[in-house]
């Protein structure tokens, strides 16, 4: 395989992996934030009783 082709392949792989790392990282952060908000709401409801 041509070295330029190998380099192209590595660059495409890097771009795709970084994209997914960013998207899934953000989704995970959103999940944690959602859980924190839900817990805060549940604590408030518990205190109100």
């Amino acid at each position, binding site marked *: 395989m041509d070295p*330029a*082709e190998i*380099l*192209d*392949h590595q*660059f*495409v792989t*890097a*771009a*795709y992996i*970084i*994209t997914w790392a*960013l*998207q899934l990282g*953000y*989704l995970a952060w*959103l999940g944690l*934030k*959602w859980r924190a*908000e*839900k817990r*805060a*709401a549940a604590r*408030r409801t518990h205190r109100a009783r």
Partner: protein
Amino acid sequence: MKKFAIGLYVAVTLALMVWGFYQAIYVAPEDAMQGEIYRIIFYHVPSASVAFLFFAISLAGSIGFLSFRRSRAEWAQISDAWALAGAEVGVVFCTVVLITGPIWGRRAWGIWWTWDARLTTTLVLWLIYVSYLLLRRFAAGPQVQTLAAALGIFGALDVPIVYMSNRWWRTQHPAPVFGGSEGSGMAKVMVHPFLWNMLAWLAWGLLILSIRYHVERQHQQNAAAEAQEALESA
């Protein structure tokens, strides 16, 4: 029923993502000029399109907030939640654009970055919306939402400038592939994979956007309830 619809949407989105990836890597042929490296287009361009769409949603939310803040408090809060969700998810997609672009540029042009109009205006757009998010995160007081809405409106003014930049000025960035001058366009065998990826990233983006919106609405409800409790205990 609602849970079923959400589950179905998530399943369809994931299927689209897998299908889009398959189309981008295995179906789309190698480009005659650029070879393999052009496959970054299947993530780079859809991310830019989705970022523009979400900044437009942020603009609509910001205008909605400023319109309703004195008359309909609930509508104003809903608009504000959309404005924040649009800006934040838009920044995520714009970050993808600003990372995948230089990776592509390094192989296609031999440089990671150049200060041409398209790249610079995109970076400015990203910086404006990052400052919007920093304002919302660190500023305090009753005027934060209003200031953020004003910044959101000004930020959105950069979107058409980014879009038109490689039409108005000569840039290192390639001329528009779609809607460009005569002779522009994409080979038919590449258009289908491209459209599948556009659809997949749009579906993914809308999923993330709706999650961010609901998180913000929950946050608003918690903050309002806490404020009410503080008033009652005083």
